[in-house]
């Protein structure tokens, strides 16, 4: 969709917003780099090739890796993408740039705070630590600033969502009879379920974790705070996924040379995610005592139905690619595949990310399969699964589309497109090796979140190959991924350092074969869908939460705090002392 007299790059059209999006992207990439480095160090540590730090401190690697990659990298990138989508489709700048920079500041400040507390865990001299992992289950306890940092970050992202609503409201006043443009529709529906779902973790952090870590309350109810985390913990993956879907829907068809197959179906998909993404959280707790089997069964059914919008997306995305390929002259039942722009890393990255996501969906169905979950829970299978989803479908799409966004935001050409193609291919291949090995290792029972999965009393028995071979495969994969990350950083830095050109394409996104006028009006009724979403969440969570609170009350007993912010030496010493005292008594 070209924008008439205002045509030009995004930088030409919206220079102030471009500056903001550059800030969010650069913050995102900084987190990606450090997070990826942690990943490499983790893989080398686990298989015992290189242990730079004692295993006790491995969990700070892991916390940093997860928090930086799945919170900082992803969310900073997506707030940039949605800002682009909203301003471009409404053809309107943001309402108040001071407000916008304020939310950016909250997010940046929050990330820094959380990051510093985690990094403190590596240094005995620093009394800060947060080796509690991304899920921070009580009674493991981090330094209070960790929780404060997370809270600021999340609240900042809420304000970002509200910023897009403000733009829409202002535009609606001037365009009362028009349908919500698709990218804006996607940003708004995503914001709605993001706010609904993150309320769970916000309550856990603000009402329980922060006062508890400050010593204002004695105990927290471990199962309650864990459940509140997972209230948020499943929907957050869709918060990461929806911007990737948006790019597959509105950018991929255009890059393929064609149009989006169906706007109405895209709206249906996003509405389905709005209403179904939160009432599935308990599927992360299938093995928890204290939650009745009936609730787990209902959640299993919800989760299986959540496969539907992704299957619909698969259809629409492939149909749109085929349409584009045929526009470019492709023919035949499968021959049209050859006509696609495979040399373009923007296209190839997104296509491979989508392909990998299909595999991820099926391993996800295993995870969702309540009684099957016994075999994979907390094993490396789960890690293999989410490296395909957030690690490829989301991360690779973000990196691939950066090759389109960066010129639009800076006015400069990508430094080297062939290297870009190599980068996305390397990611796909590296992830194949690593994730495949992780899945197979998990089936043999090898655990996740463990610094030294080498035990003395028994051996792991993989179905194919040996543990040594699986380890080697993981190291190869992880190394390729890290090289791919370095390549990405190189291309970004060299592009930004380049000079401006006049030859860039205009800002815009895909047109549709079946447009918004074909979509029933009810789809645009955001209040209705938000209401249904809230009702479903209440239905799914009221009884389980009431039951959990009924068992031990709001505040415990959850056991004594297990502070992960005391120097390891001190803590171990304390434990030894206690046992000695116990023996003497």
């Amino acid at each position: 969709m070209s924008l008439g007299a205002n045509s030009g790059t995004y930088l030409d059209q919206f220079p102030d917003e471009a500056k903001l999006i550059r800030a969010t992207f650069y913050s995102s990439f900084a987190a990606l780099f450090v997070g990826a480095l942690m990943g490499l160090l983790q893989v080398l540590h686990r298989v015992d090739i290189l242990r730079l730090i004692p295993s006790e401190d491995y969990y700070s690697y892991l916390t940093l890796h997860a928090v930086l990659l799945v919170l900082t990298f992803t969310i900073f990138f997506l707030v940039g993408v949605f800002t682009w989508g909203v301003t471009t489709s409404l053809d309107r700048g943001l309402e108040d740039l001071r407000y916008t920079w304020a939310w950016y500041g909250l997010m940046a400040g929050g990330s820094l705070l959380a990051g510093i507390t985690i990094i403190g865990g590596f240094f005995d001299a620093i009394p800060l630590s947060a080796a509690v992992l991304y899920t921070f289950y009580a009674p493991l306890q981090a330094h209070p600033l960790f929780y404060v940092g997370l809270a600021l970050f999340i609240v900042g992202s809420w304000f970002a969502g509200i910023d897009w609503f403000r733009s829409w409201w202002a535009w609606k006043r001037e365009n009362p009879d028009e349908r919500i443009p698709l990218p804006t529709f996607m940003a708004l529906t995503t914001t709605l379920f993001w706010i609904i779902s993150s309320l769970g973790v916000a309550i856990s952090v603000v009402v329980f974790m922060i006062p508890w870590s400050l010593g204002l309350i004695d105990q927290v109810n471990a199962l309650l705070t864990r459940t509140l985390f997972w209230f948020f913990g499943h929907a957050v993956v869709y918060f990461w996924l929806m911007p990737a879907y948006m790019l597959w829907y509105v950018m991929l068809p255009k890059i393929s040379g064609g149009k989006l197959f169906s706007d109405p179906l895209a709206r249906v998909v996003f509405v389905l995610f709005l209403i179904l993404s939160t009432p599935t959280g308990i599927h992360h707790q299938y093995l928890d005592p204290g939650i009745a089997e009936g609730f787990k069964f209902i959640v299993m059914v919800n989760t299986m139905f959540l496969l539907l919008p992704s299957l619909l997306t698969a259809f629409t995305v492939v149909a749109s690619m085929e349409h584009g390929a045929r526009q470019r002259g492709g023919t035949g039942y499968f021959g049209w595949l050859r006509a696609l722009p495979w040399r373009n890393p923007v296209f190839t990255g997104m296509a491979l990310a989508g392909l990998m996501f299909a595999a991820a969906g099926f391993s996800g169905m295993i995870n969702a399969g309540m009684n099957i979950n016994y075999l994979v829970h907390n094993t490396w299978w789960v890690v293999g699964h989410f490296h395909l989803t957030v690690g490829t479908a989301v991360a690779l799409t973000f990196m691939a589309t950066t090759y389109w966004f960066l010129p639009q935001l800076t006015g400069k050409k990508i430094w080297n497109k062939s290297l870009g193609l190599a980068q996305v291919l390397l990611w796909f291949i590296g992830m194949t090796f690593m994730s495949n090995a992780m899945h197979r290792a998990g089936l043999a029972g090898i655990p996740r979140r463990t610094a030294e999965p080498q035990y003395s009393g028994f051996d792991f028995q993989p179905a194919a190959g040996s543990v040594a071979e699986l380890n080697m495969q993981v190291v190869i994969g992880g190394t390729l991924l890290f090289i791919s990350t370095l390549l990405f950083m190189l291309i970004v830095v060299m592009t930004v350092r380049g000079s401006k050109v006049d030859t860039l394409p205009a800002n815009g996104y895909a047109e549709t074969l079946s447009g918004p006028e074909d979509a029933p009006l009810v789809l645009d009724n955001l209040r209705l869908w938000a209401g249904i979403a809230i009702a479903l969440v209440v239905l799914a969570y009221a009884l389980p939460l009431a039951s959990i609170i009924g068992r031990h009350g709001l505040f415990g007993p959850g056991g004594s705090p297990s502070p992960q912010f005391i120097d390891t030496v001190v803590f171990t010493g304390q434990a030894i002392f206690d046992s000695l005292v116990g023996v003497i008594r």
Partner: protein
Amino acid sequence: MRISWGGFLVVVAVMVPIVIELRTVFVHLGVEMSIAQTGLLAAVMIGALLAWAVAPDIRGRKRSNEKSE
């Protein structure tokens, strides 16, 4: 060339998961393959693809890959 270099690299990349998973499938069918054998299989498949891509057109049909980008 029946396929662009970009396309060729992509097909090779997509072959990687196929070959790796084929090995697991074969184990379940009772056929065990060592790493070396798997590598050989991959090399053969890539070689076949390359041969198809550059083989001269014996039957004289017009077959060229579409302009990309």
